[in-house]
């Protein structure tokens, strides 16, 4: 069985603190994988390592059979890994459409002397980027906010814009860091449908960090549970729900899991 993402013996140390210890993880193409765990378990660290923002102290990450553990973030994005951020990182002062147009950067990297001298063909490319960004905003339900400043959007829409922007980079693997945070139940429901549609229509593989157990249990094919930088369980939502170690780790949050 081939894996789109294969993490082996991944260890990240920040001085004395071991944020991740010897993590092994394999993600099948076209699946939705949940990454859960209590606060400080190392979930975002996993994302940061996969997307290249943190270099691992040890271990390998292979994406589509290619080793990416020590590549620069922009390189990893160009290979087809896109992500969103836990603390939203939009280009706040730019408009919604500009945010998405920047996402298309990789597919339309014109030679610099073209825009510099305003040669013909350049406006054509610009229009094409604009149209594709517009199309993406239409699909993500942001078309009404096209010219708004990104930072002026409500929280839930900012999260959605981050996903739209990540999709513009043309990913095969999408990393969603707490995308449902701050959304109301209806928005969450929409988001879940949207994520499933991404998987079905675009054949994306999705890795998501989420605190809302309802969301996780509903849409994930498999779940990996981290605690203090170690993997304590992995399996289908049903298996995770009944796993004794997971319940212990989430002590106090047990009820959430059961409901």
């Amino acid at each position, binding site marked *: 069985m081939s894996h789109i993402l294969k993490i082996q013996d991944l260890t990240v140390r920040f001085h004395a603190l071991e944020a991740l210890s010897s993590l092994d993880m394999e993600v099948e193409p076209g699946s939705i994988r949940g990454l859960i765990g209590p606060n400080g378990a190392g979930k975002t660290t996993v994302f940061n390592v996969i997307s*290249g923002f943190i270099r691992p102290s040890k271990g390998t990450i292979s994406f589509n059979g290619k080793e990416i553990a020590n590549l620069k*973030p*922009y390189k990893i994005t160009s290979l087809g890994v896109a992500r969103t951020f836990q603390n939203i990182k939009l280009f706040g*002062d*730019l408009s919604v459409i500009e945010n998405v147009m*920047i996402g298309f950067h990789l597919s339309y990297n014109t030679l610099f002397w073209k825009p510099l*001298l305003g040669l013909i063909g350049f406006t054509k490319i610009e229009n094409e980027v604009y149209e594709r960004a517009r199309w993406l905003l239409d699909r993500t339900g942001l078309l009404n906010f096209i010219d708004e400043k990104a930072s002026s959007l409500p929280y839930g829409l900012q999260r959605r814009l981050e996903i739209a*922007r990540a999709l513009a*980079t043309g990913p095969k693997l999408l990393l969603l860091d707490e995308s449902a945070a701050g959304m109301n139940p209806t928005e969450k429901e929409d988001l879940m449908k949207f994520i499933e549609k991404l998987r079905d229509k675009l054949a994306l593989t999705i890795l998501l960090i989420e605190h809302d157990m309802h969301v996780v249990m509903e849409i994930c094919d498999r779940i990996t549970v981290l605690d203090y930088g170690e993997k304590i369980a992995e399996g289908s939502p049903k298996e995770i729900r009944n796993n004794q170690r997971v319940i212990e780790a989430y002590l106090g949050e047990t009820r959430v899991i059961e409901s």
Partner: protein
Amino acid sequence: MKRDKLIRNLATFLSLLVIFGFLKWANSYTSPYIIQILNITAIYIILSTSYNLVNGVTGQFSLGPNAFMAVGAYTASLLTMSPAEKELTFIIQPIISPLGKISLPFLPSLLIAGVVTSIFAFLIAFPVFRVRGDYLAIVTLGFGEIIRVFATNAVSITNGSLGLKGINQYTNLWWSWGWAIFTVFCLIGLVESSYGRAMKAIREDETAAQAMGINTFRYKMFAFIISAFFQGIGGGLLAHLLTTIDPKLFSFLFTFNLLIMIVAGGLGSMTGSIIGAIIFAWGFELLRWFEEPHQIGDMFIPAIPGMRMVIFSLLLIIIMLFFRRGITGRWEFSWDWALNRFGRRIKFRDIN
């Protein structure tokens, strides 16, 4: 769509024609004093807009344009000066060969000055962009100082603190404004392209920019090099306007003045940088009135040297108090905007 584009191009063409007409008029019917300020204005526009590309658009707080200008000014001047002139100027130490024998026309000298400045920018980009924010400012400041000290001490190349004298006054309204317009066109084209968007992304959030697949170092370096090219040209034009240059001219104060132009005009906006440059060039001259003696009624106000600096500083404070983000903010002039406003006014008149 097509029609709009035609109107826009026509509007650009007409405004260029107006500028050309104005310059032609100014060239024959105004005083050399006014012409001088017009030249300075154009050079300031070149310098401020290209500085804005790095500081405003890409968001990298560089303090090094005085270094770039110095490199450009010295390179261009050394290339255009005739061998005889050089022999006369270099009295302490003779100029090193082959520099002493070269003499080129103005345009190639300027272009070479731009390229040499770009190469300089390329080289210093490696240490400069290893750091960010305040640290980057200090590193660029350091390179500015290094160039100034180099210009003072490399006597056989720069003639030391005596500077270069007897540079031909090639810069006239056509050269300065021609380059200013060319610079503005290039930079606006760049800012509105995917390259400009990548630069703005870096300014807004560097981490997110990397996650979008942007090689942030490459784009910062690119902005730096393009900016340096035009600053080198600006320096060359300035040298051929003033006809004498020395290391003191390119002190940190020059960078500081440019910073005032782009911040007061509106950091990140080319329109703002142009407005800032115009205000700076003309403001200083118009404020001379405050330094002259005046008889107002019975009151006699004696001449106060330095008064215009006080007034100018006050004006800056007022601008920054009432326009936090500069005069234009990040707003950019466009023909669509102008036509919209114009169109609305016409409609309004029709209703009345």
